[in-house]
């Protein structure tokens, strides 16, 4: 059980964080006060070419020096600072949130076709695996994740989320059941431009995680949602699948349906299931995934978790509850319930 919401303005018109804070706080029943978070795209225009690395430090005096050194070895720290926070009575400060604006040196991985992304991915994986009191939980350009253990409004006020502006927002209110509530375990999960919020429990996690690990990804956050971000990165960025086909890998049609398809479509869907079987996500889930140029929502193949979509002009909303969408935008029209396993996609206009 969790509450999720996402909004994209396809015309890139910016919204501040106060609306999504209100919407997420409405879905209180879906959380337990053990984790909430927000992702915002377009929030760092002054550093838009740098990777914004958000880090949780355990004890900043002990751990920060080592991370600084690692980052300098792989590129340039253009700017870094503590993420501004304001203490809240109901939120216990466990980590110090910090942000780096980082420019990797492509020469350090000159053999790669996407050296900068690969350097940052490797840094995230190695820093988080070593568990030396630093956790990089956000690593995209001109975007950032803000999360902690607490209720949605407390986490929002802690980070002063209303002070950030962006054209795409995700929000998540957590009720943890299979892993402990901790700051790193709150959603959204992020890798490079990919962010994920998730409601559900992926019963195929053991298979998905082992599959993704054989491609060099390391799951470090003890929760099944992380694997979704990595699967997207693998299928869309590395294997170059169009998003709708990547979705079919994660939530494919049943064989019964595939058997009834026209030959060409049947061949394609069979090939997807054969090739990407270990990426199939089983069990109940509703997820919203974001990238700088799009937002996408999808549920599992038999829709064991709710998902509602709404549109108003250039804005597309996806959420666990219609009420949350209406809280953000009372004028919303075209409210619909997406079919099980079929994605709802909103893209930024070019």
């Amino acid at each position, binding site marked *: 059980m969790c509450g999720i919401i996402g909004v994209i303005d396809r015309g890139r018109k910016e919204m501040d964080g106060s609306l999504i804070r209100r919407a997420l706080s409405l879905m209180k029943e879906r959380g337990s006060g053990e984790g909430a978070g927000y992702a915002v795209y377009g929030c760092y225009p002054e550093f838009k070419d740098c990777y914004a690395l958000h880090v949780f430090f355990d004890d900043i005096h002990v751990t920060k020096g080592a991370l600084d050194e690692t980052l300098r070895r792989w590129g340039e720290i253009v700017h870094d600072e503590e993420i501004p926070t304001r203490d809240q009575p109901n939120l216990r400060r466990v980590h110090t949130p910090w942000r780096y604006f980082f420019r990797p040196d492509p020469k350090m991985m000159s053999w790669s076709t996407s050296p900068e992304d690969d350097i940052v991915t490797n840094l995230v994986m190695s820093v988080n695996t070593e568990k030396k009191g630093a956790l990089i939980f956000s690593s995209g350009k001109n975007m950032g994740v803000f999360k902690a253990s607490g209720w949605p409004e407390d986490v929002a006020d802690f980070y002063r989320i209303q002070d950030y502006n962006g054209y795409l927002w995700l929000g998540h209110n957590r009720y943890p059941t299979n892993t402990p509530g901790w700051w790193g375990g709150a959603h959204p999960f992020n890798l490079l431009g990919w962010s994920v919020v998730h409601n559900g*429990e992926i019963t195929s996690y053991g298979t998905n995680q082992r599959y993704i690990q054989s491609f060099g990804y390391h799951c470090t956050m003890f929760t099944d949602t992380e694997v979704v971000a990595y699967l997207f990165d693998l299928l869309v960025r590395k294997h170059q*699948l169009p998003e709708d*086909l990547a979705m079919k890998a994660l939530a494919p049609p049943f064989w019964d349906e595939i058997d009834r398809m026209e030959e060409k479509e049947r061949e394609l869907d069979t090939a997807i299931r054969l090739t990407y*079987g270990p990426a199939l996500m089983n069990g*109940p889930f509703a997820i919203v995934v974001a990238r700088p140029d799009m937002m996408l929502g999808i549920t599992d193949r038999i829709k064991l978790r709710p998902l509602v979509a709404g549109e108003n002009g250039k804005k597309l909303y996806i959420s666990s509850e219609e009420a949350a969408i209406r809280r953000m935008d009372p004028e919303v029209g075209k409210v619909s319930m997406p079919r099980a396993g079929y994605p709802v996609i909103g893209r930024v206009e070019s």
Partner: protein
Amino acid sequence: MSIGAVPPRYRISIDRDQCMLCERCVESCPYGVFRSSDGRILIDSRRCTACHRCIAMCPRDAIDLKERPVDYRSHPLWTREIRESIYTQARSGKIILAGMGNALPYPVIFDRLVLDACQVTNPSIDPLREPMELRTYVGKKPSRLEIRKDEKGDVELLTKLSPNLMLETPIMIAHMSYGAISRNAQLSLARAAKEMGTYMGTGEGGLHHALYPYQDRMIVQVASGRFGVDIDYLERGAAIEIKIGQGAKPGLGGHLPGEKVDEDVSSTRMIPVGTDALSPFPHHDIYSIEDLKQLVRSLKEATEWKKPVFVKIAAVHNTAAIAAGIARSSADAVVIDGFRGGTGAAPKVARDHVGIPIEAAIASADAKLREQGIRNEVSLIASGGIRESADVAKAIILGADAVYIGTAALVALGCRVCGNCYRGLCPWGIATQREDLVSRLDPETGSKQAANLIQAWTHELSELMGAAGINSIESLRGNRDRLRGYMLDEGLMKVLDVKTVGA
């Protein structure tokens, strides 16, 4: 006779009040336990194999069987089996032959593993009300798909898929040759395979023409003896399997006693009547992995790359690395046969002491292939000691795509696991070629029973998956998180990549 007679293994007795002298026991027993004389059934218990045929056929339940009626002084080290092996070898100076699988009481790892189920936080899925997908494709898969999207948004698939076998259930019937088992036994199993949408192996005994109607459900085997192999045979099969080794006797060749080589077996195997069919230990053209690769590719070339080629190995210490090597040889699937795998005839010493259990072998092979990033490109088939649907589920969780069942399928035909298959006198018409015995097994009934078993296991597998909140078999495969070790040692849990119960 300095050793003298050993105690009889079984004692048969007849309740004379119940017996109506119908003599069905006399007819039933090819081993000669019963004889009728002067209105009385005489018993020679020493000949009994505990095959239970007489008990099953007695209309009055008048026959009683006791195991070890007279035993030796008990001793933990010098067991009855050890002592009797010594007596036998002291007399004969020969290797002891045995049938069925490993008979030593090693712990069964499957029985120390427990499955997971959903409670509250994720709903279990009811297979009676929701789709449940067990369909399994066995064969090579691409590592990734190449796709072209044109300006109209039409998608074109550039990757070409290799031929795969499509199974409606991840349970296949193992290779048991014509010769080792009877034609009626093979016919029963082949019909069952066809009915259940799965496949069966021919074993290394060629393909009898009576099986031609089921050839699209048969995986034809090429073993070191190359019995029955010609281009016609290769072309008839749905897939080809190269047998390097067998779990019951890793490193050893096949052995079909001459008693079982009749006219029909002889022509199907292409060997003389009455000769022992001894296939060599290694393939005489495979002395390393690159030779195997050549054979895989030659077989593919001969069949125009239309058929998947499997390679079967016995589970041995270094199975994982060997499987990885095979995976890179153009083979489409690796079959791993655990040390509990059955056989018609094997030297007892090899059967009981060589090889490793399938649970550990499949888990380590799966891990090794993942480590090399090629796990999904090749199929893994587990075999050897799969006794029930829970074993199937556990084998799949440990990394198998599908399983082969051999002994269990024979038990569905009536086999009582008496372990005397090598003698050619199987009273159930399974492991024999004697026409009167073979005719005891009606392929019509036999196929129904074998199909029932596969159907029942498939239903149970669906329920186990549904309970675990999984509606597609690929999400069970390698999903070690859904398995826990119960009283397993830490080293083994590490190999199996499972946590302990409670963790």
